[in-house]
């Protein structure tokens, strides 16, 4: 009882100190509370109490029920129509991938996500993890594309939804990082040719919108290529995303390099370290540590930019949601679809941000 009271009194203290400490603060707090009281019940009713999600008892289903989406039920409802998400769920997750082969993108996504989660722990970083990635990515590609080991051939044109978003962002992030490091050092190099090429590359890419790059990749390249030669559209987009992200990350890393105190360079030189030893063991670790937040910022941006792939007519996760909402029978319920997509994107972006904070704290050796 006494413990309870003390919690109560500390929380009361906290409320007074943080929320009602000045006259202006009190008014703002009151307004926000009033707004919450006004909006929350309405939102709750729309999302939960008035919402439609038709479920039927189904003994054959593994959880005893099955979804039976019904657009006519939604027309009468006042709340959200989650039947839309249920009806279009497979389309949203797997895009136009042949339905009897859906296990393949599913396995691929689970593998990729597991690999990402496994790679999060800094103590596992090293040569072996690098090799795992290099082996895993082509294997996932072959699983998706098929044509080998008795798997049906599925062209990349039919890929869509979750796999496209995952591949574009994961491969884009993983590949753009080393390129960015090289570009950042190249830009600081004393060798004129290397330096010019790097500056040229970075400034061109940064000076052009991502949409333009994707457009070039999808529209102009086929016109320049001789008849019959066709570079895969997904591959072209992937290269576009990777280079785009690399140019931005390179500039972030250059900022980190400049923030490393000059004494560190001199100390390394005076120890007689070679250029590569100095770079790899002294400068780069310090520089990268400094720029974790802005790098993660760029990667979160890249993750969300993958939705732009729709302009070259490939359906990423958001694209398949929109595709589902183009169906005349379900068209009024695009808000539910977008809300579903927003939740998924938020969860992923928030996880990325949280990991960035964790990494920062873990690698912080000097500043506290």
């Amino acid at each position, binding site marked *: 009882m006494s413990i309870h009271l003390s919690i109560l009194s500390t929380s009361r203290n906290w409320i007074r100190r943080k929320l009602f400490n000045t006259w202006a603060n009190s008014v703002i707090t009151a307004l926000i509370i009033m707004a919450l009281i006004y909006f929350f019940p309405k939102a709750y009713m729309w999302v939960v109490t008035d919402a439609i999600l038709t479920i039927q008892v189904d003994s054959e289903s593994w959880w005893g029920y099955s979804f039976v989406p019904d657009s006519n039920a939604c*027309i*009468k409802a006042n709340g959200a129509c989650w039947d839309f998400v249920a*009806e*279009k769920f*497979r*389309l949203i997750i*797997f*895009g*136009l*991938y*042949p*339905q009897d082969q859906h296990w393949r993108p599913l396995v691929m996504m689970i593998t990729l996500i597991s690999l990402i989660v496994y790679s999060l722990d800094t103590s596992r970083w090293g040569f072996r993890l690098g090799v795992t990635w290099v082996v895993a990515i082509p294997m996932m590609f072959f699983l998706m594309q098929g044509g080998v080991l008795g798997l049906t051939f599925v*062209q990349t*044109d039919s890929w869509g939804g979750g796999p496209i978003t995952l591949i574009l962002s994961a491969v884009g992030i993983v590949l753009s990082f080393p390129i960015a490091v090289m570009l950042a050092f190249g830009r600081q190099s004393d060798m004129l040719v290397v330096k010019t090429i790097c500056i040229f590359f970075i400034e061109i890419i940064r000076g052009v919108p991502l949409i333009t790059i994707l*457009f070039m990749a*999808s*529209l*102009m390249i*086929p*016109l*320049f290529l001789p*008849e019959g030669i*066709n570079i895969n559209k997904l591959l072209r987009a992937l290269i576009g995303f990777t280079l785009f992200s690399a140019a931005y990350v390179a500039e972030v890393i250059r900022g980190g390099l400049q923030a490393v105190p000059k004494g560190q360079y001199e100390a390394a030189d005076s120890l007689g370290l070679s250029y590569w030893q100095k770079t790899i063991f002294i400068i780069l670790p310090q520089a990268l540590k400094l720029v974790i937040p802005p790098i993660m910022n760029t990667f979160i941006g890249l993750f969300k930019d993958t939705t732009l792939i*729709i*302009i*070259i*007519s490939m*359906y990423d996760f958001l694209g398949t949601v*929109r*595709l*589902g*909402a*183009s*169906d*005349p*029978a379900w*068209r*009024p319920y*695009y808000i539910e679809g977008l809300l579903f997509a927003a939740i998924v994107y938020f969860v992923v972006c928030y996880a990325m941000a949280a990991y960035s904070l964790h990494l920062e704290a873990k690698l912080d050796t000097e500043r506290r």
Partner: protein
Amino acid sequence: MKSKWTTAIAAAAIVFSSYSASAAKTVEAIKSRGELICGVSTGLGGFSLPDSRGKWTGLDVDICKALAAAILGSSYKVKYIPLSTQQRFTALQSGEVDVLSRNTSWSLTRDTALGLNFTAVTYYDGQGFMVPKALEVKSAKELDGATVCIQPGTTSELNLADYFRANSMTFTPVVIESLQELNAAFFAGRCDAYTTDASGLASTRLNDAPKGKSDDYIILPEIISKEPLGPVVRHGDDQFLDIVKWVIFGLVEAEEFGITSSNVREMASSSKNPNIKRLLGTNPGMGRNLGLDEAWIVNAILAVGNYGEIWERNIPPLGLSRGLNKLWSNGGIMYSPPVR
């Protein structure tokens, strides 16, 4: 429905591409590939849209299936490439697709300067206006000074400006890119009028108006532009142009003769009508002229039905009646030259 980008990019494409050299042998390319590559929209209900199982459906898609059936004998041998308005012509010019079956309006510039050939009309559309009943407007001529909801970068936008200028009227455009947001803006009362192709107006009124309020909006009688939609092929391959054109005509002809997917086999074997026998290859000759199997149109009809069946399967869910797209014998303008 075209973008300003389209013309610029397509013009650039002509300068750079060698499309005419590659166009000549489309049919051979399709046969050796064993697959027809068909450019469709990125998702337009009724015309080309994947259903919940990821299978392409719609009027434009059925035309692709009919073509594949006529050329290759199977309506499943089609690869669909979704194309945005900006991409569609370049994709055709560069040979990425064999045929573009993507609710594309036929116009002189597109048929000539873009290096493309329109084949035949599969859907007659036209631009109209929708207004709230409460506005008490009976004709588009009364819309002077109105605010008009419109999607940017479309021929509709240009037609709108032309129409108001021709009638010495003024208007304020409310330009919104996303169709859903545009619809929401109109039904929230941000504009006096809404303009797009008549097919789009009807389906918007049916599907996007607030619940039970469809009847509060009327579509004005004026049609201010002609939008004949149909498949497009590259310049320089007359044989393939002929095939696409006559498969469409054949489907229309089949409806006129009452040949459907369920009775086509019976008609082919037992009909006494020489027109039907010619069309269905019972009396050979037509297939050979096209460079196809004599069962060309039989295969197409078996796969997707005649033009009327294609229409009934795809368009009524949008809330549209056939109107101009009825056969000429039923008061429409859908007409096929004789198959002989």
